[in-house]
């Protein structure tokens, strides 16, 4: 592909002080690092067979006898090693940054496997020498990765190249189409990597983490090369095309290797939380109102749907058609949203967060006590029938012509459509007069009021619309899982949703979806770490707020607000606060 690169006008800055002495040897370091990575990948990785059975990718082989037949994490390491050697020999713009990305990828892959081997094998003997066998693969690969990172950092810092290449519409469409199909395959591969975590498949978590590390390294390298920015710019030029194609690509997931009942269920659950997270994003990300009891609205939607489903434990003995149920659930949840939002008229900031937390706790306590018979208390409401259309239950498998869709695929299709609709609503709201009013309130409420925004109704609307979306998702949730219990709507779920929004990036659509996917896929994958799940989750929250408060996909406004060192003058609100404190 021919690309014209815009030269950076300023001379490239010299490498930073501490690394200056190694700068002349950067290429040598990288070649050495790449070679060590290659060698490490082919060395044995464990000195004995673990109790649970041989580690994936034949990690206990004496030496790898068929270098061309490597698979799994070894293949990733081999590829990364070759890429590092090639990059250090060929002059490519910003190769220092690309190499850093690759190096961190190698380190992540190696660490994921090494830590697991050490933990399961019971000590460092697993990866060094024990029982008369030696296995230095992990250590060699780790050193290799570190050398690549070091060499990459020691190079002269170059700005990320800007690709200005354009072509006619059809070529760009074709490029986008290929990109999105690759994206689909990548998503399917990430989702299924390591397989379903069960007693028979104990290594799924480690394999998944290792795969995630490889994908992260690859994406970091691509981002550094400017390719991803370019793709983003192209897709921005063909917005409508991208949206339509992405929707179809998302709907095609059941046709990939993820098309089994299990993965469809996982994907549908992610969809529920993604839709809910987008709703929460309106309240927290756009309007800046911290809601700590948001999952209650999902619960209200679910309980309304459960009671209207004709289940035996339902309070009403009627079965309302599903589309109507969704509307009713959304309306009821929205009404409660307005109630919960009404204190915003008088309460601000973290006091508001506490009010919402109190509402959330009231909901949990009341539904635990089976208030009015609507929630089933600790018995829950079981036996909610699945959604059906044209005499076909949504949890049945479906055969259209020669294409066989797995069980649960219809639910997946439905939730994709729901998430797409919610995204559409969010995107339009964000750029509407109302959305701008929310953002203005988030930045500075008093200034917003002075500009003529009626802050009271606007804030209540934020709560109402957010709650409506959650109620909508709740109705789906009730029919999908078949049982609705107050246990699913506890405080921790609210925190998880909030964490999803923050991790992804407040105020952005991809952020909420990405955050929800990460936070709800990880527990599914890391079953053997289930005990540590919440602990890691709490630590992750602390680390995110410390090191990347703007999230993985930052919103441009938000970035300026949350990064005090970025040189942007503080907003008047924070200045006033600093003066008041």
């Amino acid at each position, binding site marked *: 592909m021919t690309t014209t690169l815009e030269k950076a006008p300023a001379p490239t800055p010299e490498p930073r002080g501490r690394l200056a002495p190694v700068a002349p040897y950067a290429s040598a370091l990288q070649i050495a690092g790449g070679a060590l990575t290659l060698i490490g990948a082919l060395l044995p990785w464990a000195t004995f067979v673990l109790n649970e059975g041989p580690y994936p990718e034949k990690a206990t082989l004496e030496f790898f006898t068929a270098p061309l037949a490597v698979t799994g994490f070894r293949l990733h390491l081999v590829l990364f090693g070759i890429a590092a050697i090639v990059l250090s020999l060929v002059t490519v713009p910003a190769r220092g940054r690309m190499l850093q990305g690759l190096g961190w990828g190698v380190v992540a892959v190696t660490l994921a496997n090494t830590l697991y081997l050490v933990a399961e094998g019971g000590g460092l003997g697993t990866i060094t020498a024990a029982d008369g066998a030696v296995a230095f693969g992990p250590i060699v690969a780790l050193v290799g990765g570190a050398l690549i990172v070091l060499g990459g950092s020691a190079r002269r810092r170059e700005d990320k190249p800007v690709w200005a290449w354009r072509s006619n519409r059809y070529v760009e469409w074709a490029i986008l189409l290929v990109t999105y199909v690759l994206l689909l395959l990548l998503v399917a591969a990430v989702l299924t990597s390591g397989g379903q975590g069960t007693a028979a498949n104990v290594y799924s978590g480690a394999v998944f983490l290792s795969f995630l590390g490889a994908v992260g390294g690859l994406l970091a390298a691509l981002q550094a090369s400017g390719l991803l920015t370019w793709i983003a710019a192209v897709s921005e030029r063909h917005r409508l095309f991208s949206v339509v194609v992405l929707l179809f690509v998302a709907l095609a997931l059941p046709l990939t290797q993820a098309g089994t009942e299990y993965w469809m269920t996982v994907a549908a659950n992610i969809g529920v939380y993604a839709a809910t997270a987008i709703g929460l994003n309106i309240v927290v990300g756009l309007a800046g109102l911290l809601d700590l009891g948001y999952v209650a609205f999902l619960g209200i939607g679910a309980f309304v749907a459960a009671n209207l489903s004709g289940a035996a434990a339902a309070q009403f003995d009627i079965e309302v058609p599903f589309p109507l149920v969704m509307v009713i659930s959304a309306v009821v949840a929205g009404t409660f949203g307005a109630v919960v939002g009404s204190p915003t008229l008088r309460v601000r900031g973290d006091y508001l967060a506490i009010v919402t937390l109190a509402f959330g706790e009231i909901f949990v306590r009341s539904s635990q006590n089976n208030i009015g018979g609507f929630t089933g208390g600790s018995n829950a409401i079981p036996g909610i029938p699945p959604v059906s259309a044209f005499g076909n239950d949504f949890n049945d498998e479906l055969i259209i012509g020669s294409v066989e869709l797995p069980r649960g695929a219809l639910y997946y299709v439905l939730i994709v459509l729901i998430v797409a609709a919610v995204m559409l609503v969010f995107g339009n709201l964000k750029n509407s007069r109302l959305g701008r009013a929310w953002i203005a309130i988030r930045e500075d409420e008093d200034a917003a009021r002075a500009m003529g925004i009626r802050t009271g109704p606007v804030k209540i609307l934020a709560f109402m619309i957010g709650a409506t979306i959650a109620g909508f998702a709740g109705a789906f949730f009730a029919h999908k899982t078949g049982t609705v219990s107050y246990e699913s709507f506890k405080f921790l779920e609210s925190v998880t949703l909030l964490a999803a929004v923050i991790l992804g990036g407040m105020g952005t659509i991809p952020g909420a979806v990405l955050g929800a996917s990460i936070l709800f896929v990880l527990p599914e994958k890391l079953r053997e770490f289930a005990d540590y799940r919440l*602990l890691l989750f709490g630590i992750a929250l602390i680390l995110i707020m410390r090191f990347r*408060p703007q999230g993985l996909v930052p919103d441009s406004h938000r970035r300026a607000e949350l990064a005090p060192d970025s040189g942007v003058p503080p907003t008047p609100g924070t200045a006033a606060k600093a003066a*008041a404190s």
Partner: protein
Amino acid sequence: MLPTLLSQIVNGLVLGSLIGLIALGYTMVYGIIQLINFAHGEIFMIGAYGGLAMFTYLLPTFVQQQWYLALPLLLLAGAGVSVGVALIMERFAYRPLRNAPRLAPLITALGVSVALQEGVRVFYPGATAALPFPKVFVQGTWAIPVPGGTVPLRWTGLLIIVVSLVLAFALNSFVNNSRMGRAMRATSQDRDVARLMGIDPDRVIVLTFVLGATLAGVAGILYGADLGFINIDIGFQNGIFAFTAAVLGGIGSIKGAVAGGLSIGLIKALGGQYLPGGTAYDYVWIFVVLIAVLVFRPQGFFGETERVRA
């Protein structure tokens, strides 16, 4: 009739003074750095576990059997563990975010809370279920005669009331009379001007966390001694109650925290007895009160009336 009412009042006062003790930590930290330290409830919980660990693993049997030997040591251990954890938390979680926007430290506090609770659950042996707490004070009850019957007051309950009031008075006189207390008040009014006057705000903030954690650790031990068992949920639950108490009394006010704590205790005890729904809904009444106070009188009983809360 009367004995029931009075014994519920007694129960409320016992719970309330404990809540007040925890609320002091909330109110002081909020007064100084305007942070709702969500994790303060977990500091209370960790104090209880610290005491339990000391009793189980360190104390020789003859000390275990004499409550007057064991109780002071347990109180020291509880306060020590709480202070240690609070110091680590302040240094590594809150201090880097000192000048960050308002939401960031609050979310961090949520993370700290989850991490501490789970850390205890995962790493303390047997903490997945409720653990029995040693009986480190005189057991039994004092039956106070009243017309129509008697009102039972557990000796441990009496201990809670006495210790809480003594500590609250001590804290009050420390903040009002000592040099460091004056520095704390100055910092809470205006950190920048306090710095100009030669006060090191970081030291004051650390001291605030230390004082709050000490009280929380003591409260944790007293709670365990009174109830006879502890589990990892006690932190979140009582933390929310204590926060409610701090707000109810007027955040930043020491008198307010105690008064708020006593009110919360009474609401829970009397609401569980007399309001519809009974004890199943006593939590709900506390949250209703919390919302009502925040909406209609956010400055609480003793709070300053004009306070900019952005």
